[in-house]
């Protein structure tokens, strides 16, 4: 079992620039079913992806692959021709909001946006546009979503993942990889890893993903990786305290971050004394979450949470 993406996911790609192409290739090598690409003005053409199979991905495949991905002028055409149910957006920031809205309008249920640097006002507009539609936006400015051995969408390195028992949700890409690798190394493995992104206005929140994991029978525990800025971690802590039936571990980045400075991510800023790591850690610990002191201890914190719940 898994959440959001699995072996039945049919993916299209919006934005086949250098980065989009590189990571689409890695996804296909992993075994993700990429059914089309949206390239306005290049509909009818196709792009060939070929190389050596990534055997850490979907099992039982030949050692090499060669896939011709058809191009479409619009998302609507792509969906009609392929039955795609997910899209990944690599479109550059000035045009990314438009790409997301196009996907939503075409009825794609899952929109995963990797693009970093989308203006906040554009995302505010996107969120209004998505309101009331049956669509989930993950990101922007996120690594994507992966269900080990089934489907990899985004930019995460596939080989660190191992199918298992833990749901991973994070505002940071690279810290997701840290957590995933430690969960692979200590044998807990992952059901699905979801990067929600580092922007202040995003499509999917910690609470959204916690709910999904809480309802997923295969997920036995959850690790949540947060950082300074905003109050998403505090909201998650309140939700966990009231609703979560599974053990949760966490790490919050930015204990040493100076106030008033934007730490890389647009959303990672302590402003007016709000959004500090200390507040978030206190809220999470108050909700019974095991909080790791350094990112190298995320795996052991999860193990500890599982032990306390009698699950390890």
């Amino acid at each position: 079992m898994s959440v959001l993406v699995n072996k039945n996911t049919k993916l299209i790609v919006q934005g086949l620039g250098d980065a989009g192409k590189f990571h689409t290739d890695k996804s296909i090598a992993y075994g993700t079913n990429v059914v089309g690409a949206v390239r306005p003005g290049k509909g009818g053409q196709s792009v060939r992806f070929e190389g050596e199979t990534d055997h850490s991905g979907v099992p039982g495949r030949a050692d090499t692959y060669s896939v011709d991905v058809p191009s479409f002028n619009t998302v609507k055409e792509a969906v009609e021709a392929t039955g795609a149910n997910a899209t990944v957006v690599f479109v550059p920031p000035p045009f990314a909001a438009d790409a997301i809205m196009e996907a939503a309008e075409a009825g794609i249920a899952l929109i995963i946006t990797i693009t970093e640097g989308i203006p906040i006002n554009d995302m505010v507009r996107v969120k209004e546009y998505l309101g009331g539609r049956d669509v989930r936006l993950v990101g922007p400015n996120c690594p994507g979503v992966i269900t080990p051995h089934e489907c990899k969408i985004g930019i995460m390195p596939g080989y660190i993942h191992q199918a298992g028992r833990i749901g991973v949700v994070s505002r940071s890409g690279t810290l997701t990889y840290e957590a995933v690798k430690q969960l692979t190394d200590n044998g807990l493995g992952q059901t699905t890893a979801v990067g929600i992104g580092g922007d202040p206005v995003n499509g999917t929140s910690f609470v959204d993903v916690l709910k999904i994991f809480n309802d997923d029978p295969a997920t036995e525990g959850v690790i949540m990786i947060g950082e300074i800025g905003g109050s998403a971690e505090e909201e998650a802590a309140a939700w966990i305290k009231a609703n979560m039936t599974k053990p949760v571990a966490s790490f919050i980045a930015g204990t040493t971050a100076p106030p008033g400075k934007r730490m890389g991510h647009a959303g990672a800023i302590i402003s007016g004394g709000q959004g500090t790591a200390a507040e978030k850690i206190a809220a999470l610990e108050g909700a019974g979450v095991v909080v790791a002191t350094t990112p190298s201890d995320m795996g052991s914190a999860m193990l500890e949470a599982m032990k306390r719940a009698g699950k390890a």
Partner: protein
Amino acid sequence: MKIHEYQAKVLMKQRGIAVPLGRMVTTVDEAVAAVRPLVEESGNPVVVVKSQIHAGGRGKGRFVEHPDVAGVNVVTAGISGGVEAAEAKVRELAEKMLGSTLVTIQTGPEGKQVNRLYIEQGIDIERELYLSVVLDRATSHNIVMASTEGGMDIEEVAAETPEKVLKETVDRSYGLQGFQARRLAFDLGLEGDAHKNGARFMQAISNLATALDTDMVEINPLVVTKSGQVMALDGKMSFDGNALFRHKDVVAMRDLSEEDPAEVEASKYGLSFIKLDGTIGCLVNGAGLAMATMDTIKEVGGEPANFLDVGGGATTENVTAAFKIITRDPNVKGIFINIFGGIMKCDTIANGVVAAVQEVGLQVPLVVRLEGTNVELGRKIIDESGLNVVSAANMKDGARKIVELAGGNQ
């Protein structure tokens, strides 16, 4: 990105928002020359001489070289002595202020050099209010915040008397509606002309914030004049860096002399860099990992010298630039490169580091931890380079090694 007060007022004026008359000057003679036209046009013999730096708290700030001079000075000499007396006083102030170092609660003890002054007309103030437009992350909408406590720090007001902070949510599609602006104006106790002007001011400021993609607009104080006008006496604006591509006029207002030179250099290469006070230089990919690397260095007894995220799209050239920026800091006693490649490939990092060391040399210990996309290729490049590099198995291991090699934090 931040701009100066006088620039914020230019942007407001362009949109019909009331601001006092004023002139930005960079020399003493220009400052003196600004007085007469201001007095004549405004009909008010009082002028104000205001330091233009990006930090706040200027009114209460003092100059290192002239501790008796404040960052903002009201010149009343013109009331009894005429324009000549006002000019003489402005000359005296400008001579002391220009080129001197202003220390405010926001500049830190080292202060900021004042290179620009804003000479502004005096205003007959009836009341001082507070107004700002900021993003409310919880609802993903801008909110207009107002308070009767003009001139006060809004965070203090919010902590001590939260009932005095008034808020209205700005709908993204429709903007701040008339009824919302009127409600704010009523709650601020504005009446008659002041009510009408105040409501109009708030709608205009809210529209400006959306149109210019601001992170924050703060008018503190917003003043009501004796004649019922509502004006921005001060103006602070910062902009969403991601939206600057569509605001060339705002980008042209950037004053690089107000920013840390290393941070400016870093931004040219698409690097996110923040200078800190410690001794361990960090080169990391990903903002979360970069923060966590700093936290880990501190946890094992060291102090980070910087935050540096090379980002996902960095080239070998960018990584080389990052390495050079770190090594230029004389406090740096050791460097920790911590990479978990996703969109960033380990071989790109490795090539960048090797190129940088070949160019600028390596005077301090270097610990490298590589993991992720193209990791084998990256490790091979480092191994075959012959560089004196210590490898780390994971982040904590790397942090321990570099803190030890750098001699603790002495």
